[in-house]
């Protein structure tokens, strides 16, 4: 199945165990200089032409490492990058032991019919951290609830959120790009978690409160929403 490693990365990944396979990469768990680490290996995609594959894989590895560093410098919670190998496209980073994705947390909360107010605290925190990221002019490019982690045991108010997966990120000060970033999140949010419109609105309110540049971004978000293809432009 998916447990064969690409040959060239094998020495680097010795001693690591495959944990999961995301859209872009295989994630391994292991140790780096004695610390619990996660290795994100962007393995060659055999369906792509090799030239295209190399170009994309390299670009995304670089972007991810750069954006993570930039966020870290600004005090935004992202995993610490320990080491990047540009030949095999492996990123060694901090292992957030015991963390869960926001996606899983929302799904379990909704399924168990639990108090949805705890999700309100989460929405507030998401809005805050995204406002901080956009104020740094970092566009994530792939905002989904699978790309946000909750540190171990920090569900509920005061949730400790960590952003991950910066492979599609880039730098931009334009409200348009930030608006599109939020639109991507909104679509991913509402399609994965049905009936959470008010929760997402709470996220946006928190975002607006946390950033002076937010009004322009929200305005752009409203415009971008109307652009959906085949969407009736009536009313």
């Amino acid at each position, binding site marked *: *199945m*998916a447990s064969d490693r690409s040959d060239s990365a094998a020495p680097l990944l010795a001693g690591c165990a495959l944990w999961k*396979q*995301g*859209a*872009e990469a295989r994630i391994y768990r292991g140790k780096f200089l004695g610390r619990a680490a996660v290795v994100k290996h962007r393995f060659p*995609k*055999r*369906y*792509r*032409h090799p*030239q*295209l594959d190399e*170009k*994309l894989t390299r670009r995304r590895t670089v972007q991810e490492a750069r954006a993570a560093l930039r966020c870290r410098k600004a005090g935004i919670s992202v995993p610490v990058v320990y080491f990047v190998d540009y030949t095999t496209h492996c990123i060694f980073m901090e292992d957030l032991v015991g963390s869960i994705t926001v*996606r899983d947390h929302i799904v379990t909360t909704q399924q168990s019919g639990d108090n949805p107010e705890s999700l309100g605290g989460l929405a507030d925190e998401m809005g805050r951290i995204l406002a901080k990221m956009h104020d740094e002019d970092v566009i994530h*490019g*792939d*905002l*989904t609830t*699978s790309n946000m982690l909750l540190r171990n045991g920090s569900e509920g108010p005061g949730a400790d959120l960590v952003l991950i997966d910066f492979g*599609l990120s880039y730098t931009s000060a334009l409200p348009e790009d930030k608006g*599109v970033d939020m639109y*991507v999140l909104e*679509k*991913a949010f509402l*399609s*994965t978690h*049905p*009936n959470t419109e008010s929760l997402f609105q709470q996220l946006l309110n928190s975002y607006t409160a946390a950033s002076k540049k937010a009004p322009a971004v929200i305005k752009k978000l409203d415009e971008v929403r109307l*652009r*959906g*293809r*085949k*969407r*009736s*432009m009536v009313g």
Partner: protein
Amino acid sequence: MTVVIGFEGSANKIGVGIVRDGEVLSNPRRTYVTPPGQGFLPSETARHHRAVILTVLQEALDEAAITPADIDCVAYTKGPGMGAPLVTVALVARTVAQLWGKPLLGVNHCIGHIEMGRLITHASDPTVLYVSGGNTQVIAYSERRYRIFGETIDIAVGNCLDRFARVLKISNDPSPGYNIEQMAKKGTQYIELPYAVKGMDVSFSGILSYVEEAAHKMLDSGNCTAEDLCFSLQETLFSMLVEITERAMAHCGSQEVLIVGGVGCNLRLQEMMDAMCKERGAKLFATDERFCIDNGAMIAQAGWEMFRSGHVTKMPDSWITQRYRTDEVEVTWRD
């Protein structure tokens, strides 16, 4: 026993199909093909459909050995698609529904593709890649809606291919995409083209502008052949599609992919998607050109599902619309 007749003509294909309890009894179709270098315009397409639709209808009834009395419901494409052709077909559907005294049902074209894909392949709960000349969407079913996880933010992938074919005056017979596919098989050189994936969405207008501008220069300079361009374009476009499909699968935790829509006929796309699936331990489902390309039976099949779960379209509501999102329909026939 439920028999549904479906009318489809939202683009340049006009098809009438009859379905009875999961069996396709007939599915004749005609395609309006334009000369190389030209696309199809709404009014001319509608004219084409008007000229042949009654013949195709008769064929559908004859092939299925069905009389109007046997039919339980008349389904037609409500949208999305091109205005004039949609109107033409809806008019015929309304007329026969009244003539035969049968209930009418307006069907979403995209859902027609999905339901036919599900019927033919028996995929249980796949991530659907719907790719055609008019649409490019990644769809997954959740809580009574076919939710759009990713889509093109500008033009459809089929539109990109069709317009590229016009630049090189590639024949539109049987379809530009088919001819590009054949030419691509002979391409050997990979030419770098812009690649635009934005999260779960894709953008094709950039790559189209690029090739429209650069194609003739590249060919004239002798640096590459038209076959090389076809090959490179396919590799780039299809990689983008496979990528957004993979993202949706990872996000939803899905292990099945279903490709529907005209571009889904492309064997290279199927091959690439299959390679991605194998690396994830997932399974690919695809149909052949009878059902990938717009056809009447897919409208009949979606209509069959909808009719049996209680939907009906009243005459005053039987208008058509060019804009009709896949997620606007409440999918009452699934849990």
